[in-house]
């Protein structure tokens, strides 16, 4: 069993069986999971901020759109046991964002409109593993799916791909986020079925 999903760039030549982690089933629709009301932050009030580096970094919506973007085709896996293959996104790589910040952190805590947080080791969001996505399937990401922008970390369970993300705090320690502090796994690798504490 691979320890890292091979789905960063979905390969249709692979049969689904080796693209679906244990305990998951395929869906064709895109289920919406919400822990609260959907925020509707106007784009002219939206910023993306990285705290915890030598200097705080912040981008307005227009500045963020001007950053180099990538199209990503990938499989996604929700801890509620659905997987969806070949989803198509556009966004800014975390390699790009973190490359613009002088830091020596090992972890980040992402923060979002609505108060959600999730934690990630930087080694799991660099080298082409994570993006801030603002388009889905060729269109602007809808608010119910996390628009205007969400984190996309497809090799981990999808609760790590935080909706309505507004920035990161770079940290030396892996501080558990909203779900990770109350039962869900600190990392959440679907290929290892890291759903709950102790899995």
């Amino acid at each position, binding site marked *: 069993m691979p320890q890292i999903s091979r789905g960063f760039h979905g390969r249709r030549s692979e049969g689904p069986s080796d693209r679906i982690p244990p305990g998951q089933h395929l869906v064709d629709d895109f289920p919406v*999971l*919400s822990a609260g009301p*959907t925020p509707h932050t106007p784009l002219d009030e939206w910023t993306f901020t990285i705290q915890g580096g030598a200097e705080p970094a912040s981008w307005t919506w227009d500045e963020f759109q001007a950053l180099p973007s990538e199209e990503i085709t990938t499989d996604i896996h929700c801890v509620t046991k659905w997987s969806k293959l070949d989803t198509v996104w556009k966004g800014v790589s975390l390699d790009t964002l973190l490359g613009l910040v002088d830091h020596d952190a090992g972890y980040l805590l992402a923060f979002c409109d609505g*108060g959600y947080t999730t934690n990630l080791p930087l080694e799991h969001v660099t080298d082409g593993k994570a993006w801030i996505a603002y388009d889905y399937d060729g269109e602007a990401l809808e608010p119910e799916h996390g628009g205007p922008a969400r984190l996309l970390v497809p090799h981990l369970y999808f*609760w790590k791909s935080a909706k309505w993300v507004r920035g990161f705090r770079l940290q030396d320690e892996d501080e558990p986020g*909203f*779900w990770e502090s*109350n039962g869900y796994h600190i990392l959440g690798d679907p290929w290892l079925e890291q759903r*709950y504490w102790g899995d």
Partner: protein
Amino acid sequence: MADDRRLDGNAIGGMMLELFGVEMTTATEVCRTCGTADVVARLEVYMDAPGTVVRCAHCKAVLMRIVRGPDRTWLDLSGFRSIELRSPD
């Protein structure tokens, strides 16, 4: 739409009865964030997330998070200042 996904506090009544053996929906809680007192049945509940999230109907602060694994349940009640349970007559 998001508001269609919002339930009220009655949605957690069965789970609370199972976990604690008490009828929680008629209890009165006080929100730690805004101090509003309300009956649990009137709180806002989201159950389609990876866990259940109970929010204050007044300030929307998270009052309670419930995660149910196959063999364990995790509860975070830190958003409440207090919960007043009525004793049976």
